[in-house]
């Protein structure tokens, strides 16, 4: 169809227009609060075919935006984190429990958790994301209603839990029982979607560090999620971001929480194995 062809051409031109003038991402060091040293660049594992070095999205931002992440007080996610902290110890549901009822010490019980999710859950017989695990606790342990998968309660809680792993390397398992989901995620990553017929890889592997119109394309790493987006003025859930990307290809997208997006989250997380957990990060 002519329209599709036109759109495709336009998209391609936009991607290529800046290809020659693209600046390499800088080599700044991310140290948060003057003490937590973050790994923003790491060699990828052998199973990641198309990518030799993983860079955190932070490395693709300009210095003003990078600065917002250096100090927790200047990170605009601070407010959402406070709200997440409040809901950590807030009793909800028929069992009269809060998160803190079972996981007494937030720091001790949640350290390292964000780094290994999504992960296989034997009982569920499926890969679970941090969000689905949080909702599982709510419905099964607390007798509370599940939160909206990518709503503000969820992103606030994810941020609070992620903070306990901040600085630790992402380390999701791609083998064993999670392998099927990982393979499915990899397939989705390289599948072209939408009228624009773009795959994740077209922008974030083939053209990372180039510009798509005015946007400096990153590798689409997710170690910083949930991320505070200046665009929306709030925390964005990683699968909500996937949805936005796929929608921008003018496709019908998968839903946050769907099997497809869970698989994709696992695969994309594995592309950044070794990068520090950076959530909540600040992105445009």
């Amino acid at each position, binding site marked *: 169809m002519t329209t599709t062809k036109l759109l495709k051409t336009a998209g391609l031109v936009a991607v290529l227009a800046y290809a020659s003038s693209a600046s390499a991402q800088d080599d700044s060091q991310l140290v948060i609060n003057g003490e937590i040293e973050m790994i923003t660049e790491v060699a990828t594992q052998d199973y990641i075919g198309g990518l030799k070095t993983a860079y955190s999205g932070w490395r693709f931002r300009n210095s003003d935006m990078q600065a917002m992440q250096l100090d927790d*007080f*200047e990170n*605009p996610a*601070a*407010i959402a984190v*406070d*709200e997440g902290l409040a809901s950590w110890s807030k009793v909800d549901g028929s069992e009269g429990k809060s998160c803190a009822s079972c996981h007494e010490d937030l720091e001790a019980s949640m350290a390292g958790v964000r780094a290994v999710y999504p992960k296989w859950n034997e009982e569920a017989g499926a890969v679970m994301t941090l969000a689905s695990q949080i909702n599982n606790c709510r419905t099964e342990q607390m007798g509370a209603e599940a939160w909206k998968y990518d709503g503000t309660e969820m992103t606030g809680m994810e941020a609070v839990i992620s903070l306990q792993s901040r600085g630790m390397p992402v380390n999701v398992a791609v083998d064993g029982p999670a392998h099927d989901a990982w393979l499915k995620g990899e397939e989705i990553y390289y599948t072209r979607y939408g009228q624009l017929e773009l795959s994740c890889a077209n922008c974030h592997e083939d053209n990372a560090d180039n510009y798509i119109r005015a946007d400096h394309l990153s590798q689409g790493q997710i170690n910083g999620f949930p991320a505070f987006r200046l665009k929306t*003025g709030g925390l964005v859930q990683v699968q909500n971001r996937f949805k936005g990307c796929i929608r921008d290809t003018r496709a019908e997208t998968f839903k946050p929480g769907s099997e497809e997006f869970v698989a994709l989250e696992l695969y994309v997380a594995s592309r950044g194995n070794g990068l520090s957990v950076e959530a909540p990060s600040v992105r445009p």
Partner: protein
Amino acid sequence: MADNVKPKVRVPKTASAGEVITLKTLISHPMESGQRKDGDGNLIPRSIINRFTCDFNEQNVIDVTMEPAISTNPYFEFEAIVPETGAFTFTWYDDDGSVYTEVQEITVG
């Protein structure tokens, strides 16, 4: 009153007499500019915090008139002289008449 308005301030715990310290403040507020439209195309009325003040022992440090170009969740960073032990009072004034206050003590040693 806008929902869930929470102030946050960062003040050092101690200082030496006459020291100049950096203060940072953040408050959760949508700062609705009065320029946006809702889903039905109706203009969303302006609702912002229009003034912020910081005082130390009832002497003024800074008094800010705020207008719609200030971003959501207003952030300020500025410097203050600490002449003696005392308390910083931070006050935000909402268009709707609400007033939000935060007090932080500092010891001069």
